[in-house]
Each structure stands twice: as C-alpha cells, then as structure tokens.
C-alpha cells in the first residue's frame, strides 16, 4: 500500500484536542452540551468498521474491509470515485462528509455478539466513532444494532440476511441495505417453479438458529404457495461439520428437492455431502433431484468448489450484474472497476453492500446537513435512489429495510476462474419481493441521538 493512502489521524486529532483541551471538564456526557454522541468537532469524522477478522468469516470480513477503505477513499476524493459517479444523489462532493475528512477505525467482531459489542463500544467510547457498520451474521447485526440504539449511534448493517434485523429486532438507529430471508424466498419460488415444475416435494435441512428458522419459513411459505409440498424439515446443529447423517436419508424420503438453509461453513459442508451422496445425479419421483441454497455468496461457492455447479440460490448482488442484465444496474461496473483495479479481483456481495452502506450514510449526512443520528435517520427514511448497482432502490421508512431487485443465481457449470463460480439466472423485480412492514412485528422506537 502506498503512503499516499494514509490518513494522518494522529497528527490531525492531536491538533484538534490541543484546542479542546482547555475546555472545562464536561460533567456526565449524557447531559453534556453536545447535541448528540461523538459530535465531530474537528476537521475529521470517524467511522467504525466492525467486521469479522478472526473466525470462519474472516475472509468475508476482509472483503468488507477492502470495500470500506475504498469507500473512504472515494468519499475523500481520492481514486476514481467508483459509484459516486453513478449514484443518483449528487450531494457528495468528494471532500469528505460535510467537509470533514473521513477517517476510520477497525475492529474484530469474531462473529460473536459479545465480542462485536465490545468492539463497537470501544469504537464509540474510545475512538469517537459517529457511525458503526459491518458484520457478517445476523446475530452480530442484531446485537450491535441494539447497542447503537442505546448509545445513540447510527448502525449501517453489513451482511445480515435474517428477517429479524429489520423485523422483530428493528431499531430506529439501524439500517439495512442487504436483502433478507423473506425476499430470498419470494424471489426464488417463481423461478424454481418455472424451472423445476410446480409438483415438487421439498426436504429442508435448516441450521438450528434464528437465521435458519426465518429462512426455512420464508422458503417454505413461498414455495408452498407455488404448489410445492414440504416433506420434512430437519434442524442441524450450527456446530455440525459432517452432514452425512442428515443428507443420507433424503433420497429415500420421497422428496425430489433438497433445500439447504445453511450459510458459511455449514452450507459448504452440507452441499459437499449432498453431492457426495449422489443427490445431484439422482432421480426421484421420476424427476431429476435438485438442490437449492437460498442464500449464496461467492466465498461459499469458492469453498464448495465444483459442487455448486447447477445449484440455484439467491444473492444480493453480483459483479457481472450490469453486463448480464443491462444498464438498469448501473454502478456495478464502476464499482467492479475501481475495486478490481485496486485489489486485483472482483468484489463480493458483502463488499458491495458495505460500500453502498458507507456511501448511503455519507450521502444522508450531507443531505441532512448534520451527523446527528436523528437527522441522518430522517434523511435515509423513505429515500429513493439509483445507481448503486441494484437498480432503483427504496430505503423504507417503516422498517429501515432496502427494497430492490433480487438476483437468482446458479452455480456455473464451467467456471473460467475462481470469481466466475456463479451465474445470474434471473432477476426478480423489487415489487415481487416487497412485503408489508408489519408482518414480522417489532417496533422501531424513536431515534436516539444519545445526548
């Protein structure tokens, strides 16, 4: 990395503090003069990038971090500007946010709610971060989102797919760009019915935790609405590594589709087992046996290797989207170009969503004219935008969930490289995956500026 990339935080910040150092002791921050927590007073603003750096999702976290650093570069007017050039809102000028240079701190969530909160709290209490973003699991997202609500900080969720994040556990200070289980189900069902027929019998293997439950429910509901029948749904422990005993009975269960409601290592291992047991090549009820993975990511596909070939799933975004589906998804190529030139490979969907979240936050601050979480929240609520690679998108006010088209992908039969493991099959329009905000319960509460 060249030295020009550096943000000389130390120097600048000490300058700022030298000025503030003489101020009177502030008594009880909760009732201090500041209008909101961690109001940036100097010439910089600090964002907190809280991603898994250790544990099984470390590679995904590393990709998120790359995207964050790229976004910071672009916000500060360095690099080629990436999606700033295609973003429909033109409030950002490449001079930081509200004229303040963007700096960042990083932390390790370890993909554990406790550790993620510790890391986020240190960013808030020690580093003065005004926004926290990142994460690679719903457990972490829900936990950190609640923390940010209490602390009076905006939380821009990273990769989190459970309905709960903007459903039962939604918070006024939290926002999610990524899609969710419901949308996966709604997007997949019509295409599955189209390709595999309406007379199908599905067998679900479901990771035994919150995300697994919501995903199973979403896929079941939407496929059953298409006429599929659910033969069985078996819960598998999150810590399971060998899925043979779960996969082996599937073939003789009367089912002809296996749905793997698994993510990460669970998905890689269960899919590998399923292919080993010959499910891909098998016939059942006079049809070809099929496997479906509701949530795909490129890194998982890489882990499962050639086992993903021909297997359907959904994803939030893919780097080939604009080339395959046209200019509606403008921004994709701009982002892939600036990311690819900097790092040498195309970005993952986790990188994309975190990059978008950073830009969306910055843009909301600009439009609101403040970093105050309440102002920023208001600017994001109901915000309609385009040019961030997903086509026209709405940040719905009722639950702070983004609504955009959902990609249905399948494993590439003949990949030309490690990055070409998925191919886009179809794109389900946003209207088809939109649901009523009240169906998952939960309350946003009111925005908390922390002061």
């Amino acid at each position, binding site marked *: 990395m060249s030295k020009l990339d550096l943000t000389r935080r130390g120097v600048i910040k000490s300058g700022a503090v030298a000025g503030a150092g003489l101020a009177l002791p502030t008594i009880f921050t909760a009732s201090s003069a500041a209008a909101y927590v961690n109001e940036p007073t100097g010439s910089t603003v600090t964002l907190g990038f809280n991603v898994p750096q250790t544990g099984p999702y470390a590679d995904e976290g590393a990709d998120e971090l790359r995207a964050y650093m790229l976004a910071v570069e672009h916000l500060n007017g360095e690099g080629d500007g990436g999606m700033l050039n295609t973003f429909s809102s033109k409030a950002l000028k490449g001079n930081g946010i509200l004229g303040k240079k963007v700096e960042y701190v990083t932390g390790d969530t370890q993909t554990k709610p406790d550790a993620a909160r510790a890391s986020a709290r240190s960013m808030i209490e020690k580093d003065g971060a005004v926004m926290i973003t990142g994460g690679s699991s719903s457990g972490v997202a829900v936990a950190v989102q609640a923390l940010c609500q209490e602390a009076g900080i905006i939380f821009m969720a990273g990769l989190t797919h459970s309905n709960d994040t903007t459903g039962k556990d939604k918070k006024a200070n939290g926002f999610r760009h990524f899609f969710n289980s419901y949308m996966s189900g709604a997007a997949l069902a019509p295409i599955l019915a189209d390709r595999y027929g309406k007379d199908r019998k599905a067998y679900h293997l479901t990771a035994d935790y919150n995300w697994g439950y919501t995903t199973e429910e979403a896929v079941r509901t939407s496929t059953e609405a298409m006429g599929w029948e659910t033969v069985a749904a078996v819960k598998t422990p999150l810590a399971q590594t060998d899925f043979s005993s779960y996969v082996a009975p599937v073939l003789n269960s009367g089912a002809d589709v296996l749905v793997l409601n698994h993510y990460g290592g669970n998905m890689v291992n269960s899919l590998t087992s399923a292919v080993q047991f010959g499910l891909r090549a098998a016939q059942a009820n006079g049809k070809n046996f099929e496997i479906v993975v509701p949530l795909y990511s490129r890194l998982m596909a890489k882990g499962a*290797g050639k086992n993903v070939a021909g297997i359907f799933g959904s994803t939030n975004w893919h780097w080939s989207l604009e080339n395959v589906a046209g200019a509606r998804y403008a921004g994709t190529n701009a982002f892939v170009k600036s990311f690819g030139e900097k790092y040498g490979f195309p970005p993952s969907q986790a990188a994309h969503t975190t990059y978008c979240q950073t830009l969306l936050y910055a843009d909301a601050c600009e439009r609101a004219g403040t970093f105050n979480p309440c102002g920023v929240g208001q600017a994001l609520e109901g915000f309609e935008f385009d040019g961030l690679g997903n086509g026209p998108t709405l940040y719905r006010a009722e639950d702070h969930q983004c609504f955009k088209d959902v990609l249905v992908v399948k494993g590439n039969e003949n990949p*030309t490289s490690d990055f070409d493991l998925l191919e886009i099959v179809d794109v389900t329009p946003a209207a088809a995956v939109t649901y009523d905000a009240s169906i998952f319960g939960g309350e946003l509460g009111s925005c908390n500026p922390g002061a």
Partner: protein
Amino acid sequence: MDQIILQILNGLDKGSAYALIALGLTLIFGTLGVVNFAHGALFMLGAFCAVTLNRILSLSHTVIDETKKDFLGNPLKVEVPYVQGWFGESTGQAIIDWSVPLAILFTIPVMIAIGVIMERGLIKHFYKRPHADQILVTFGLAIVLQEIVKYYFGANQIPMNAPQAFFGSFDFGAMIGMEPGAIIYPYWRIIYFCFAAVLVGGVLAFLQFTTFGMVVRAGMADRETVGLLGINIDRRFTIMFGIAAAVAGLAGVMYTPINPPNYHMGMDFLVISFVVVVVGGMGSLPGAILAGLLLGILESFASMRQIIELLPGINQVVIYLAAIVILLTRPRGLMGRKGVMED
C-alpha cells in the same frame, strides 16, 4: 431397516474420524503423559499438506486467452499447470486429480518431522509440569499453528476433490442384497472408513508385534521401570510422538474430500476428540477406538428425523449426554485403567 443400516454406516464413518484423532491423542497421553491440545492442529496440518501438494502440482504459468474476457473486460489469463506441460495434458490432469492419495506419501514424512520437532523442541520440557501447563502451552501452540495456516491459506474453506474415479456414490444396499436404491453411499466415505481401519490396525499391530512396540507399551504401563532397565525410552517416545502426528495428519489428508478443509477444522474436532478419549478411558487405545465408533453411531442415530421429532435438540447434545451417562456408570470410561489422571 435400510435407514438403520444407513445410519450405522454414517456412524462408523464419522466414528472412524473421531477414533483416528483420539487414537493419536491416547498414544501421546499414554506414552508421554502429556495432554496435547495441539492434536487437532496436527489433524488440520495434515489436511493442509494435501492442499499444499495440490497447490504444488497445480503450479502454473499463465497463458492469455484472447477469446475470453475477465471481470474487468481484459483478455482472460488462463492458468496452465506445469505438470500438464511436462507430462502432457491428460497425464498432468490425472496427477492433479490424484493429489489427495498422492498426498499420503507426502504427508507421512512431513508430519513425522513436525511431530518430532514439536516433541524435542517443546513438549519434552513439559513432561514433569502439571497438566494445566501442558494444556496451556499446547493450546497456545494450536492457536499459533492455526493462525499461520490462516495467514497463508485464508479463513475460507478450500475445496479438495477425490480422484474422479471415486467421485459420487454407489448402491451399497444392492451389494448386500437389499433392493436397489435403498442404501446409496459415497465411494470416498467407504474408502475413508477402510483407510482408518487399516491405519488403526497398523498402529495396533505395530505396538503388539514389534519389539519397539513392546517397549513402548511397557513404558505406557510403567515408565520408570522401563527407564531403569536401561532402555532409552525417551527416544522411542519421540518416535511415538512422530507416529501420532502422522496418524493425525493422515486422518486430515483423507478427510479433505469429505469436508473442504479450513484452518479451524482442528479446533472443531478438539473437544469431541477429548470427549472420545475420556469416554474410552484415559490411556486405553482400544477404548479410544471403541468410544469413537460408539459416539459416531450415536450421533448419527440422534440426527434421524424421527428421533429429533421425538426429542427436539437431541442431535445437539447426544454426544455429551452419552459421555455423562458413561462416566457416571463407568467411572474410568469404557476401558480405562485405575489411577490415570484422577488427581
């Protein structure tokens, strides 16, 4: 009925992986009296020996293919492995295809070397130290090994394929005279089970029928006396550690086509393998194997849909529940000796 046979097969398969790791742990505990928390890491290192060999065999030079484009729209760079250049495309391809079995030959010397270095360089200084110290130092070592692997290979899983010839599954049920399609089982898992059986048999036979093995067994029973007889038991123990490391490594190599390896796979097995060793009885080799297979089968049965429906969550806890019941009814595990690790 076919469901039950299927789950017994699954259990034996899973159990053989447990048994192999537990066997190595027991060898180290039995011979050296050391609680080795880095044993899972040795399993992982073995798996990554296979990955490394695969990488070496696939070392490539790039050829630019103008007809295809990469993600940035530039001409695609196609990687062509050197072995394909040297041996021709089909032979080269076959060599890469067979990298996992080939890795066995590569792994044995590497893992023995790692084991010997580990024992001479670190473990031997901890023979007289409390078990708590051994746990801490080997746990620290496990983290270090794991992080080094993560640094070079990343945190993501790395797909490894069995040779094409063993890809897919076959009709095991038809072979044993059941109706076709009742029991479909993957080739590689059967191979893994047989491999484990051969390895276990080999280690046991080695201990049973060679002078070396007899001395080591005598040393396991009574280290001081054997030492008094003027036999250099230390050197033999070093070799034993090397063998235990190689057993763990081979278990890892052969496991790669079953589940794609990642740096964390050793930790995933660590707790379960300790449970297996203790349930089998500390220091008992047959106990470790028996317990491994038993727990594997129990785990498989507990994952049956009919049983989960009856007892939700049983698949999450069955191994621990079994361990508790066995330890309460048989104070020293299935085949444990008296006085080992009881204080």
